[in-house]
C-alpha cells in the first residue's frame, strides 16, 4: 500500500510537469532537453525512502502529503521585503518570489560593469547553458532532478577574471504559502575573482506551509576566492530541501557558512569537489532546531588531488522534540597525498526529548594524509555552569551565555556585520534565551 501511495504522489508530479511543460515556450531548446532528461531521471528514482542509506534518518513522506501549487503568479501583493535585506548589499541584491525574479525589489546598481548578477531570463543564454546543471547531478538525487525539471528562473552570478566585488551580493528567495518553488542559483568565479554571496530563504508568515526545493551550483576557478553564506530561515512549518554542489579548481578558496534555522523538515546537501592542487575549502554550519523541527545536513568533501586542505565544523543546538541529522563524508582518493582534512560535528541537546543522529565518515585511499574527524553530543557542562555561577550569574543567565557561546563559534566567523547581528538575535530569540 505504501508503494502505491508513493506512486500516486510521483504521478502527481509527473502530471504537473506535463502540464507545465506544454505551456512553456520552446526556447531555449537546451533547457527543454535537460528538463525532459531530469524528469525521466526523477521517474526512475522516485522519492527516497528511509531504506535508502542517504535518507536513513529523514522521512520525506510528510512533504509529499500537502498539495502544493506551482507558482504561476504571485498570490498576494508583497509590499516590501525590507526586513529580509541587509544594508551592506542594498545595491547588490536579487529578489526571487516563488523562484521567479522580482525586479521591483531587486537592485544591482552597486554591481560594477562587466559583472553578471542577474536572473536566467535576462542573462546571456550562452553563459547560462555553459554552466547550468554541470555540477548538481541528478542521476542519484530525486529532488535535484525535480528542481532541474521544474526550475524556470534563477539567479546567475559570474565574476570575471580578476574582479573583486566589495559589497556582498545578496540573493533573497521568498516563498508564499501553499507554493512549491524550485529556486536555482549559478555562481561562477573566474580566475582570481573575489566575492561574497549571501543566499537566504525566508517566508512571509510563520504559519506558512510550502515547499522550497533549491539547487545551487558554485564553480571557483583558479585562484578565485568565494565566501558563501547560506541562511535558511524558512517558516517553521515549511519544507526545505536543497543541494549545493561546488567545484573548486586549483589554488581557489571557498568558504561556506550554512545556517539552518527554519523548516519543519529541512535538508541541505553540500557537496564539494576539489579538482586541483593547493585548494582550501572551509564548510561550516550551524543548525538550531526547536519544537518538532527536523534538520538534516549532509556534506561531502571530495579530495582528488594532492596538497589540499579542508575544514569542516558543524554545530547544532536542539531543544524540545527537535531532531537533527548530520552526515559528513570525507573522501581522499588515490593519489590525493598531502591532504589535510578535518571534520567536526558538535551537538548540544537542551531537552530530554531532543534527538540527534550523526554519522561522520572518512574514506581514505591514499597513505600520506592527515585526516581526522570527530563528533560530540551532550548538554552544557556542569563545570562551566558552576564557573559562571560562582561569578554571581543567575543559572538561567549562565545557561544562556553558554548556549550563545556554543553558537557564536560559527556566527562570529561571519564577516557581514548585519548578517551576524541578525543571526545573534534570531538564535537567541528562538531558544528563548536572554543575556542580561
Amino acid at each position: 500500500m505504501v508503494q502505491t501511495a508513493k506512486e500516486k504522489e510521483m504521478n502527481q508530479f509527473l502530471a504537473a510537469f506535463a502540464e507545465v511543460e506544454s505551456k512553456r515556450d520552446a526556447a531555449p531548446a537546451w533547457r527543454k532537453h535537460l528538463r525532459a532528461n531530469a524528469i525521466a531521471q526523477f521517474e526512475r528514482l522516485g522519492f527516497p525512502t528511509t531504506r535508502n542509506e542517504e535518507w536513513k534518518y529523514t522521512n520525506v513522506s510528510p512533504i509529499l502529503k500537502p498539495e502544493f501549487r506551482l507558482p504561476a503568479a504571485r498570490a498576494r501583493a508583497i509590499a516590501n521585503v525590507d526586513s529580509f535585506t541587509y544594508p551592506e548589499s542594498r545595491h547588490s541584491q536579487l529578489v526571487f518570489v516563488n523562484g521567479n525574479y522580482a525586479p521591483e525589489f531587486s537592485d544591482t546598481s552597486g554591481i560594477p560593469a562587466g559583472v553578471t548578477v542577474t536572473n536566467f531570463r535576462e542573462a546571456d543564454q550562452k553563459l547560462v547553458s555553459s554552466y547550468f546543471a554541470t555540477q548538481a547531478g541528478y542521476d542519484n538525487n530525486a529532488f535535484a532532478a525535480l528542481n532541474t525539471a521544474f526550475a524556470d528562473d534563477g539567479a546567475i552570478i559570474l565574476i570575471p577574471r580578476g574582479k573583486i566585488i566589495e559589497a556582498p551580493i545578496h540573493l533573497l528567495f521568498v516563498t508564499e504559502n501553499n507554493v512549491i518553488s524550485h529556486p536555482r542559483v549559478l555562481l561562477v568565479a573566474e580566475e582570481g575573482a573575489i566575492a561574497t554571496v549571501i543566499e537566504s530563504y525566508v517566508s512571509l508568515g510563520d504559519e506558512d506551509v510550502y515547499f522550497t526545493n533549491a539547487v545551487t551550483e558554485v564553480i571557483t576557478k583558479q585562484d578565485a576566492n568565494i565566501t558563501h553564506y547560506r541562511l535558511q530561515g524558512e517558516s517553521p512549518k515549511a519544507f526545505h530541501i536543497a543541494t549545493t554542489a561546488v567545484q573548486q579548481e586549483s589554488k581557489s578558496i571557498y568558504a561556506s557558512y550554512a545556517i539552518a534555522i527554519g523548516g519543519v523538515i529541512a535538508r541541505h546537501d553540500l557537496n564539494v569537489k576539489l579538482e586541483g592542487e593547493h585548494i582550501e575549502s572551509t564548510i561550516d554550519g550551524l543548525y538550531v532546531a526547536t519544537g518538532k523541527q527536523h534538520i538534516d545536513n549532509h556534506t561531502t568533501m571530495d579530495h582528488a588531488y594532492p596538497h589540499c586542505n579542508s575544514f569542516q565544523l558543524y554545530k547544532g543546538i536542539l531543544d524540545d522534540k527537535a531532531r537533527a541529522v548530520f552526515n559528513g563524508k570525507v573522501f581522499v582518493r588515490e593519489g590525493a597525498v598531502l591532504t589535510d582534512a578535518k571534520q567536526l560535528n558538535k551537538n548540544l541537546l537542551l531537552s530530554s526529548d531532543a534527538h540527534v543522529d550523526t554519522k561522520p565518515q572518512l574514506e581514505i585511499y591514499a597513505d600520506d594524509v592527515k585526516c581526522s574527524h570527530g563528533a560530540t553530543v551532550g548538554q552544557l557542562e556542569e563545570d562551566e555552569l558552576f564557573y559562571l555561577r560562582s561569578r554571581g550569574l543567575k543559572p538561567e543567565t549562565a545557561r544562556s551565555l553558554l548556549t550563545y557561546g556554543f553558537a557564536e563559534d560559527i556566527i562570529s566567523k561571519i564577516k557581514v556585520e548585519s548578517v551576524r547581528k541578525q543571526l545573534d538575535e534570531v538564535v537567541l530569540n528562538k531558544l528563548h534565551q536572554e543575556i542580561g
Partner: protein
Amino acid sequence: MSATIEALANREYKYGFVTDIESDVAPRGLNEDIVRLISHKKNEPEWLLEWRLKAFRHWLTMEEPEWANVKYPKIDYQDIVYYSAPKPKEKKASLDEVDPELLDTFNKLGIPLNEQKMLANVAVDAIFDSVSVATTFRAKLAEAGVIFCSFSEAVHEYPELVKKYLGSVVPYTDNYFAALNSAVFSDGSFCFIPKGVKSPMELSSYFRINNPDSGQFERTLIVAEDDSYVSYLEGCTAPKFDKNQLHAAVVELVTLDNAEIKYSTVQNWYAGDEEGKGGIYNFVTKRGACRGKNSKISWTQVETGSAITWKYPSCILQGDNSIGEFYSVALTNHHQQADTGTKMIHIGKNTKSRIISKGISAGVSNNSYRGLVKVLPKAEGARNYSQCDSLLIGAKCSASTFPYLEIGNNTAKIEHEASTSKISEDQIFYFNQRGISTEDAVSMIINGFCKEVFRELPMEFAVEATKLLGLKLEGSVG
C-alpha cells in the same frame, strides 16, 4: 536431461534422511532434511531441532546483506557441506614431519615447543598430554562450580540453561548469517559461571577437551550469574589453515548483576595468498547483553587473518550502571578486507561504553571501522567515548570510518574521534639514527599504535599478538 528428470533430481528427498544416516558426511546443500540430519546426528532433543528448523525457515525468507564495505563473489549456499563428523586426525611422530614454514612461524611467534606440537598435531609426551592438561583444568573448574564444556555436551547435560539463554541475545531472526548459524551450527563452547564465582583461571577454547575442530558454524554461549567473573580467550595466534570458505559463527554473552565477562579473540585464519586467492570469509555475529546492574562486558579482538572479516562485537547495556567495552586491532594486508567495529546500545541508566579501534592497512587491502552508539530516550546519564585510528602503510590500501551516533537523551555525553595517518619518514629516521633498523622501527611504532588494545589482552596473548603483527607485515614496509 529432460525437464521431468531434472525436476525429480532436484526434488527434496521426501523420505527423510534415512539413506544418509550411516555416512559421516552430509550431502552438499541445505534443506530441512539437512537440518534434521545435523540434529539427529548430534542426538539433539526435539526442542532444539524445532528451533533449528524455525531458524532455517526464517533464513529462507531473508536476503544476504550487501551493505558492508567488502567485495566478494556470491556464496553458493547449496555448495557447502553442512555436516561432517569430526575424524580423528593421524598424529605425527615428531615435529620433523611438520611443514617447516609453519614451524618457522611458531618460532617467530615464540610459541613454546610443547604447544607447537599440540598445534601441529604432533603426539605430545606424557608430561604435556593435552588431555591430561585439560582434565586437570576441568577438575579445577568443576571445584569452583564453573561449567565449561562443548555446546553439544551442554545441550544434553544442562538443557535448561541452554534453553533459557540460547538465542536470547542473538535471536535467529537477527541477521542472515545468524539465522544460517542457528539452523546448522555444528558445535561450540558453553560456559556458565554461577553466582558469586570468580573463575579460577582464564578459559580458553584452545584447551577445551572435545572436538577442537568445531567447524565453520560455531556457537558460543557464556553466562555469568550475579557477582561472577570470567575471562575467555578465543582462538590462538598460530595460523589456522582451513579449506572452508565461509565461517558464520555466533557468540552470545549474558551478564547478570555485578558480573563481568572479558572476551578476548585473536583471529588468524587463513587470509588467502598474496594475490588474494582463497582465504576465509569470517562473518560473525557477536553480542553481549549486560542484563544486570553494574555488569560489564569487555570485547578485545586482534583480527589479522581471514580474507574478509565482517563482524561487530556488540554490547546491549540494559542494566543500570552497566559498562561495555570494545578494544580492537584489525590488520589487513595484501588483498584482505575488514569491515569491523561494534555496537553499543545504551538502555539502562548511567551506562558507559568505551570504543578503542585501531586499523592498520597495508598492501592493497581495505580496512573499515563501522560502529553504532545508540542512546535510547530513557538511558539517563549515558557516556560513550570512541576513538578510531587508522594507520596506512603503502599508497594502494584504504581505510574508512563509518560511525553512527544515534542519541535520544540530552544527559548523554558522547564523544567520537578518528584519525588517519601514516608512519612518517621522521619517525623512521629517528629510529635509524639510533641504530634501529627500519623493519624494527616500524614494528615498534605499530606496537605503540596498538598499545591501548594490547594491554587489555591477557599477558601471554599480548606478547604473541605483538609478534603476530610484525610477522603479518613482514616485507610490506621499506
